[in-house]
């Protein structure tokens, strides 16, 4: 866990004062609505369908137990007793009162948290691998680099009024768990042939209306040049990104218009003018940041202990959970525990104040006092000794946080949709519920295997539907909710955008359509080892399309 120094704390405290002043001026009629809007958005505050929505930043998804307890406190005191984890490792509250938001920010600041730049056309939360520091396939821990970047991006005087929002993600592992190639900038921490540490830089990925996979514009950037290079990219974007059309304003559109090579040349020219300036990092700057991370102390004896093998043999519910919701830890004798926020009857990513408190308690007792939020809208206890895994599972079961579905069909990701969001065209939470009901049989889900289903209630794509193995997009047709389906998307190393199956299907038919897609997969796969994505890439769209649309159920209008 990164601990603030006095400077970090001062800045967050001054932000609270700034926002309190802005809110008071707005409520007193001294600040007009349009101006206040852009200011409040830079503190993650939206005015939504029913009430304001406040998005709180969780840098690279990492939370200390005392921070999670504060999030629970906020849910209880200022909201309706729950929060919603997002696809960018943040948390949102759907029912705060505008006049209380400065108090919420003050409470957050007391535990080194904030809502800075969680919305608005500025640099957003820096995201990363939710298994940072514990994954076996990791080169180095990416979090100090994320924190450096967070500090550089925080209140950057030049880049607070960009053409559009700007998202940066870091990965440092063989398997990309941070969807870096669908971010405005994806940073891969790598070593070059000489063994030196540095970065590969991808630019221009993104989801939303115009989904694109990022382009690598620099194969190797030396370690100390990270900030100067990011500054060069942002300056080019700030200068040349389109401002005449909000739907053409992301950096991906600029990269597409110039071409990745030309864009890379412009960045390189700007960077050459910046790289030897005071933006160049000193090795000690990185060491300083690293030294402010409190890392877990592992018990070497843990590897010699009995672990949970005995319980696996006698408790089939536990065994079924262990199969899906545990991942191997780089330290032997330890496991990574996924806390599923996808239970039947609950909106994906929702968590109550009581659950947050209880997970904080588990973290203190069993997992180095830390919790991570994933971009799949689950939580992780990353440092659980094998001897404690069974006890953790028992408690999670009592809390309704042990659905054994990580990576399976019902571990779907989903935006708030029409139930909360004023942008949405269609509901997504209720569709998630239908799918849950239809695939409630866990044995069936296990048989289907790993499948990433992602759902958005509108073109903005907060549910990342275009990179779902199965993607679902809600659209509005003459006031009715319809759903477009895409197949074959992926946000990992083999990143790809899904293909449209064809005409959209109605609200009544969408869960059935998913069922048909799954049936075709089960028939077509060469064996149980061939994943949905691999099967789709081998057989292509035709068998899926045939099953989906060759049916009397398909309404004539949709075929027109």
């Amino acid at each position, binding site marked *: 866990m990164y601990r603030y*120094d006095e*400077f*970090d704390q*001062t*800045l967050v405290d*001054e*932000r609270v004062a*700034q926002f309190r002043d*802005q809110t008071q*001026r707005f409520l007193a009629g*001294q600040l*007009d609505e349009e*101006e206040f809007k*852009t*200011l409040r958005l830079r503190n993650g505050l939206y005015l939504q369908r029913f009430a304001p929505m406040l998005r709180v930043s969780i840098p690279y998804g990492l939370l200390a137990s005392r921070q999670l307890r504060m999030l629970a406190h906020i849910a209880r005191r200022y909201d309706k007793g729950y929060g919603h984890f997002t696809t960018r490792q943040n948390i949102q509250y759907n029912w705060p009162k505008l006049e209380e938001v400065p108090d919420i920010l003050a409470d957050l600041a007391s535990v080194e948290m904030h809502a800075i730049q969680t919305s608005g*056309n500025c640099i957003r939360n820096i995201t990363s691998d939710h298994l940072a520091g514990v994954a076996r396939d990791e080169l180095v821990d990416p979090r100090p680099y994320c924190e450096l970047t967070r*500090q*550089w991006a*925080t*209140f*950057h*005087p*030049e*880049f*607070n*009024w*960009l053409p559009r929002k700007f998202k940066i993600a870091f990965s440092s592992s063989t398997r990309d768990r941070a969807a870096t190639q669908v971010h405005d900038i994806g940073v891969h921490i790598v070593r070059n042939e000489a063994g030196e540490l540095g970065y590969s830089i991808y630019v221009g990925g993104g989801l939303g209306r115009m989904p694109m996979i990022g382009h690598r514009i620099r194969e190797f950037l030396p370690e100390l040049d990270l900030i100067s290079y990011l500054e060069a990219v942002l*300056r080019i974007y*700030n*200068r040349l990104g389109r*401002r005449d059309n909000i739907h053409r304003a992301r950096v991906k559109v600029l990269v597409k218009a110039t071409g990745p090579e030309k864009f890379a040349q412009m960045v390189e020219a700007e960077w050459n*003018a910046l790289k030897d*300036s*005071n*933006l160049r990092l*000193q090795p*000690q*700057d990185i060491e*300083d940041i690293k030294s402010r991370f409190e890392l877990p102390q592992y018990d070497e004896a843990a590897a010699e202990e009995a672990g949970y093998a005995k319980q696996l043999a006698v408790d089939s519910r536990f065994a079924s959970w262990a199969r899906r919701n545990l991942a191997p830890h780089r330290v032997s004798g330890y496991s990574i525990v996924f806390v599923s926020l996808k239970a039947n009857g609950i909106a994906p990513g929702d968590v109550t104040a009581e659950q947050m408190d209880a997970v904080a308690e588990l973290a203190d007792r069993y997992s180095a006092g830390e919790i991570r939020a994933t971009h799949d809208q689950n939580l992780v206890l990353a440092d659980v000794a094998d001897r404690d895994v069974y006890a953790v599972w028992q408690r999670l079961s009592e809390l309704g946080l042990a659905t054994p579905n990580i990576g399976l069909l019902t571990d779907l990701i989903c935006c708030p949709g029409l139930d909360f969001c004023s942008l949405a065209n269609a509901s997504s939470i209720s569709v998630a519920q239908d799918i849950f009901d239809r695939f409630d049989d866990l044995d069936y889900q296990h048989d289907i295997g790993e499948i990433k289903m992602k759902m958005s209630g509108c073109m903005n794509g907060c549910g990342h539907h275009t990179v779902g193995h199965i993607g679902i997009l809600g659209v509005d047709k003459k006031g009715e909710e319809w759903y477009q389906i895409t197949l074959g998307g992926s946000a990992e190393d083999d990143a790809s955008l899904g293909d449209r199956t064809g005409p959209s299907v109605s609200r009544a038919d969408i869960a059935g359509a998913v069922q048909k897609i799954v049936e075709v997969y089960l028939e077509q796969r060469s064996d149980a080892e061939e994943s949905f994505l691999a099967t789709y890439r081998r057989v292509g769209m035709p068998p899926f399309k045939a099953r989906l649309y060759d049916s009397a159920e398909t309404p004539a209008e949709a075929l027109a």
Partner: protein
Amino acid sequence: MSSLILADGQLASDDWTVLDDEAAWPESGRVVVSLARWREVGKAPAGLEVAVSIPNTENVDEFATELLDRPMLLLEIPKFADGRAYSQARVLRDRYRYTGQIRAAGEVHVDQIHFMRRCGFDAFVLPESQSADAARRKLDEFSLSYQHAAVPLTTVWERRRAARAPG
């Protein structure tokens, strides 16, 4: 009435007159001309002080060296949410070491001037809707900064480096 506020928070009287491209040069005084006009004439007529107004769509790298002896450059802020002039100001200060006044004019809002100042602006033409009192308070809204920018507060990085320096 708009008001002119300087980097130290003081109100100043504005003795610059904006000159239309078609208007004849006056005999004397201080005038602001468009970038296009300045690039055409290349030097100030005798007896006149001439400042140049730069649209925020321009790449200052292309002409900055022609402007370094101007007493004032006016950067246009057509919409308060349009951040292009911030980059122009920084490039003028950091890369070309421009030392004259950089003035923000247009939709300049008090909640932005702290950040503008850090990018190198040192004069702000506030529209009537904006209060000069608020602007004065807002200039020092943050006491610290992570970023090196044209007019740095001592940055957090420098403070950390100083704190770890031996002795």
